């Protein structure tokens, strides 16, 4: 069994929050790592869910400019126990531990539903990453989008499910990762209980 772990494990513990940073168009989102059940290529998404699951384009869900599918596009399989949602993102940047003191609330000027969508933000590269509120994300489901984001129902493919190859975060390629401890991942032989990190 191959698992992927972070090279830099100096940061961690109760004072930090582990998140997966992804990009949709020019906006970075950070998803709590504990709700990520898997990361697959779009064409593999249907085979990787054990039952019907809404596939939502995360950028479209938030009315962000659309980006066509590319080799970097990925589908995040999210849920607490089972896969509840599949979110298509443009790029998976990588996994990181963010010190909680670095996570700041949205400026008070943002007074709409976005305060429910995002639990905070932190500085990320030359931009910011918005921390998605996991409770909201999973509770809303794919059909309850803020607008008319396209929802594609995935059908289970039991025959192919076992053949799905989960994708390691080290395949993240945007930006080269300079000055960033997020996507420094390596294969590790030791066990890791992060479910999506296993093949």
């Amino acid at each position: 069994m191959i698992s992927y772990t972070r090279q830099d494990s100096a940061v961690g513990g109760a004072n930090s929050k582990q998140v997966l940073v992804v990009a949709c168009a020019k906006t970075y989102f950070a998803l709590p790592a504990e709700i990520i059940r898997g990361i697959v290529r779009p064409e593999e998404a249907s085979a990787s869910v054990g039952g019907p699951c809404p596939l939502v384009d995360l950028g479209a869900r938030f009315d962000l400019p659309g980006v066509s599918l590319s080799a970097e596009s990925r589908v995040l399989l999210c849920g607490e126990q089972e896969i509840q949602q599949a979110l298509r993102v443009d790029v998976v940047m990588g996994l990181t531990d963010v010190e909680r003191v670095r996570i700041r609330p949205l400026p008070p000027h943002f007074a709409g539903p976005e305060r429910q969508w995002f639990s905070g933000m932190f500085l990320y590269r030359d931009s910011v990453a918005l921390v998605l509120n996991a409770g909201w994300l999973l509770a809303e489901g794919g059909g309850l989008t803020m607008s008319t984001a396209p929802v594609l129902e995935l059908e289970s493919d039991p025959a192919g499910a076992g053949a799905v190859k989960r994708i390691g975060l080290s395949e993240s390629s945007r930006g080269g990762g300079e000055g960033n401890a997020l996507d420094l991942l390596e294969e590790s032989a030791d066990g890791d209980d992060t479910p999506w990190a296993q093949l």
Partner: protein
Amino acid sequence: MAMTHPGPNSKAAPTCLVVVFSVGNRRIAVKAEEVGGVWPWVEAIPIPSGTAHIRAMMRRGDDVLPVFDLAEWLHVQVQGAAPLCLIAKRRDGPMAVCIDADIPTLQTIDASAIKPSPNPGSEEAGHCQIGSEEIPLYSLLTLGQVTPAGQYPNDFGHREGAQAR
């Protein structure tokens, strides 16, 4: 920022320092004390938002400022190849506002040249006479905020049809 000094014959009448800038070629005056600075505009970060006219942020070092889309609010388009960023000191914190590339000017005007708005509490504090030009004077302290009644303050009807989502 260019500054215009009062003439040598000016009296010691109360004066007011205003910044005059333009958005979509529409000239606007604001009190200088409500301006936090003027920078070159840098690309804003799109932020999913249901807040009217605030759907981006701008990062400058470790500072992250919400961006208020004044041009959208006024139903105009920012002019110039190199727009500028005006920092508005709104009451709940500074905001970045994209303005035309024309360099804002700092003007000292007689307080008596300001005609107050007939609508107290409005973002439009009034008009000010600068030379032969009458320019709307806006308050950046409450820019884009709705009134307790849920209505936008008076802005000469520039935003007909605009409403919070």
